[in-house]
């Protein structure tokens, strides 16, 4: 449902946004939203709108992130930060089970407390897609990841349309934004200027409709709708990066020896930041630990990365020894093999891997360079050493 067509779009003011947060908390949700911490905008528990980073935006580039003041008091006037929502839905460290020795036998206990009920405030279009992608990975294959599925089922999502976008954003290239289209309970479009500061609010689910009914809202005027439309247009026109996805899967899958892989490997440190920051990367490793007295053991699952040597360790050693083979694994998985595996690409164009790569490696630039060898019509310069 989009604002323009439904005729049902409504507006809420700042006070109603505050009430929304309080109602969600009152309903037992842990409300998670953007806050300013350590000179960045990260997602954490919020109690009300004063926790939101009013008047801040972010300046992002390859290996670069800085907060800067905006000229207004927008609450959501920035792009995505270092954290993805996977930190909550697919936590970085999770104990899967514990075992306790009792005489000659042992008991197994899944230490799963009831799954937390999260309400996410401020989920952008790219991140909604990323959540949908992780849903495919964890819930729609032959086996369901129960703890992910429980957390996901419980989640209430308040999406926010991007007003201004970041320097590393390319969701439009990936067909994942900037307009929010599905996968939310409520969606907000922030309208700051002209006053009053308000939000166009759209309903995406029954739970969302029930929540909206509890808020003070007004029917959106046609000028509200026009203003929202200009917000969408501005965001779409501001994409900092671009990927040409035409034939990209075939290109990547037929270039295993392209010299660019070695060239990027000279810059890449195989540190794994890109995979950790990526909202769709789902890989984990399993560690088993036992106590010194051998009375108990536990199995822990932690985020892993295809940039580690252990990731491809099989009998005899690691398959992907070279940094070039590891970078190739990452890029080809995200943009090509993922499509074979899950029917969609594993990249939503959020730009996090570009911002949070300590040496500023930019996958859009790598793709353009890989394309050069096969597509002389492309406009990006070829940078072989």
């Amino acid at each position, binding site marked *: 449902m989009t604002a323009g067509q439904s005729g049902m779009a409504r507006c809420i003011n700042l006070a109603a946004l505050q009430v929304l947060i309080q109602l969600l908390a009152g309903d037992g949700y842990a409300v998670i939203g953007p806050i300013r*911490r*350590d*000179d*960045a905008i*990260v997602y954490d528990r919020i109690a009300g709108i004063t926790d939101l980073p009013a008047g801040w935006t972010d300046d992002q580039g390859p*290996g*670069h*992130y*800085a907060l800067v003041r905006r000229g207004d008091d927008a609450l959501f006037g920035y792009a995505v930060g*270092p*954290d993805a929502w996977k*930190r909550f839905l697919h936590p*970085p*460290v999770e104990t899967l089970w514990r075992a306790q020795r009792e005489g000659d036998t042992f008991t197994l206990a899944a230490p799963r407390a009831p799954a937390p009920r999260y309400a996410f405030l401020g989920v952008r279009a790219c991140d909604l897609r990323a959540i949908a992608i992780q849903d495919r990975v964890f819930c729609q294959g032959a086996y369901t990841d129960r703890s992910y599925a429980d957390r996901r089922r419980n989640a209430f999502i308040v999406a926010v349309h991007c007003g201004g976008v970041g320097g590393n954003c390319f969701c439009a290239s990936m067909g994942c934004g900037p307009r929010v289209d599905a996968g939310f309970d409520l969606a907000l479009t922030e309208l700051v200027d002209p006053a009053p500061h308000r939000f166009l609010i759209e309903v995406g689910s029954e739970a969302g409709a029930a929540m909206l009914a509890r808020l003070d809202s007004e029917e959106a005027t046609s000028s509200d709708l026009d203003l929202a439309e200009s917000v969408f247009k501005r965001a779409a026109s501001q994409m900092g990066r671009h990927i040409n996805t035409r034939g990209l899967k075939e290109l990547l899958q037929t270039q295993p020896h392209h010299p660019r892989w070695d060239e990027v490997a*000279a*810059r*890449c*440190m*195989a*540190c*794994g*930041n890109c995979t*950790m*920051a990526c909202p769709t990367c789902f890989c984990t490793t399993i*560690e*088993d*630990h*036992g*106590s*010194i*007295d*051998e009375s108990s053991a536990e199995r822990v699952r*932690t*985020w892993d*990365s295809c*940039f*580690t*040597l*252990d990731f491809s360790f099989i009998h005899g050693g690691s398959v992907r020894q070279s*940094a070039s083979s590891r970078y190739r694994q990452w890029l080809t998985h995200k943009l090509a093999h993922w499509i074979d595996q899950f029917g969609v690409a594993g990249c939503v164009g959020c730009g996090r891997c570009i*911002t*949070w790569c*300590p*040496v*500023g490696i930019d996958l859009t630039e790598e793709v353009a360079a890989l394309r050069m060898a096969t597509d002389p019509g492309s406009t990006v310069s070829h940078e072989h050493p």
Partner: protein
Amino acid sequence: MRHRPRLAVWKFASCDGCQLSLLDCEDELLALTEAIEIAHFTEATQASLPGPYDLSLVEGSITTPVDAERILEVRRQSKCLVTIGACASAGGIQALRNFAGIEDVVATVYPTPSYIRTLATSTPIAAHVPVDFELRGCPINKAQLLEVIAAFLAGRKPAVSSYSVCIECKRRGNVCVMIQGIPCLGPTTHAGCGAICPAYRRGCYGCFGPMESANTTALAREWQARGASSLQVNRALRSFNAAAEAFQTEALRHER
């Protein structure tokens, strides 16, 4: 009661910090002494039982002719030899002598240099005898030490990862300080500390030495692109793990 494996803890050139991590395991110490027999650990007890030992933990680097002999005997007496800490695994901070003239160093430190019998270099244990496992860190992480001992007792591989500090840093939810302008060694440093320094908004100091495939050249280039001087790169790599290969080689490129 089943046979308790016999543990020995040895000290070479070091500050004792890593051995102290073992004594620091207060909650687990009782279980530890029930599971293993502490046969030699002078930091904890004067009593010393003769070898052989099932597990030897070796702290410190080799810096004297006497120690170069002593480590051979420790190896002979040990079924399994695990080095603990940056000194034993990489030569330690004292390996800075490797990059200076030993006479100058001795003359600077001691009033009567003629009393001193020392080697020109500080070298890791693995440069002298085969090592079964190297536990990194300056100092080591006591949780990892317990993991290594528990794994030894259970006959399994320790769950100790050799990837970058960045992976721990991201898991912990730190905002990357390097991206925000603070030079950080995390991308090329071996995990194990849990990314403590970035959690306190400091760059990683490299206490755990180079990670499994450390591209220190790329990191140094990036530091310089962000304004660090060659001297700063050199100094950062020349600390507790100065003699570890990936750090040593890159630091040399930034020698005045």
